[in-house]
């Protein structure tokens, strides 16, 4: 990553994540097709819901003929973390028009968010519309292209798990986490590692009694809260950006 915020730079910096979207997008297309939906309906899900791993849940609940309201609620809960991501990144676009803000929000993903947060470490805390929009658009295009490929070849792949494609998204989370830690200078390293350790404990213990739909959002809220407490008790106060 570098300090430049133009479209060409955004394109170059997003390219590595394309591989991850391809893997999981193809996997989704294959699974959607295997669940009995037409390729076009599978593609429509990706185009319209655009919720990554949550779409697998939507498909499985559709197959089991769950009530519409409970499917929508489950999708909301799994994606409730988007509210936090959106809250975190939106302040950097306060100067841009409402329409541009809505457009950036519409195509925001875990990965474009993580790339944006990582980029801040190289641009002295600046982001702009052309850079972030390019990241978003490339992600959206790849996700839908991958879904279509998966839906079209779905008939020929009997066991998508064999290919290991479902690990693409997990590998992406690992990579983005590592890149964030190694680039972020706003929080002390020891504090970051402690918070990650606590998150591991929260996820593990949370799994005992928190339904999987709610787990990520609960663990994130509690984890961030613990991070703030630790920072105040054990690390000297610092000026918060932006």
């Amino acid at each position, binding site marked *: 990553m570098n300090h430049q915020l133009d479209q060409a730079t955004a394109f170059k910096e997003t390219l590595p994540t394309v591989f991850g979207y391809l893997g999981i997008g193809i996997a989704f297309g294959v699974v959607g097709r295997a669940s009995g939906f037409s390729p076009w309906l599978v593609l429509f899900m990706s185009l319209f819901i655009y919720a990554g791993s949550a779409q697998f849940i939507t498909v499985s609940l559709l197959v089991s003929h769950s009530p519409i309201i409970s499917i929508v609620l489950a999708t909301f809960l799994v994606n409730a973390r988007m509210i936090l991501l959106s809250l975190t990144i939106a302040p950097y*676009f306060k100067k841009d028009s409402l329409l541009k803000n809505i457009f950036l929000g519409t195509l925001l993903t875990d990965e474009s968010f993580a790339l944006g947060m990582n980029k801040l470490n190289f641009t002295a805390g600046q982001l702009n519309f052309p850079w972030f929009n390019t990241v978003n658009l490339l992600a959206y295009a790849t996700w839908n292209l991958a879904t279509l490929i998966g839906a079209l070849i779905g008939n020929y792949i009997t066991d998508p798990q064999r290919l*290991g494609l479902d690990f693409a998204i997990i590998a992406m989370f*690992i990579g983005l986490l*590592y890149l964030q830690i190694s680039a972020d200078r706003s929080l002390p390293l020891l504090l970051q590692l402690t918070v990650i350790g606590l998150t591991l404990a929260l996820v593990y213990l949370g799994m005992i009694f928190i339904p999987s739909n709610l787990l990520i959002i609960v663990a*994130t809220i509690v984890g961030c809260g613990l991070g703030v407490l630790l920072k105040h008790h054990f690390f000297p106060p610092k000026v*918060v950006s932006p």
Partner: protein
Amino acid sequence: MSSFEYTLVTIIGCGLITWLSRVLPFILLKKFTLSDRVLEFLSFVPIVIMSALWFSNLFTQDLGHLPRLNLENFLASVPTLISAIISKNLLVIVAVGIVSLAVIRVILA
């Protein structure tokens, strides 16, 4: 309601609710400014959310009991993490991850 209508209404409902989660904060923050306390809370979101998404894939849930280790994902995470430290390149990291899991499935099968 036909099966097609049921599917279509569900997809539209899921799409709208997801869109609102993404867009409403952008709209609200055009008008309001977050307090320092909230910003400090949000500064932990990137690392906590990425690790929560990763860790939740390392276990299999069994409500009411301790989660079981997802051995495949756990083992595949090791080379993936090492490749992250060495390469610092997402493309390499994702490729190593996919290949690792495929190889581990072959070995464990």
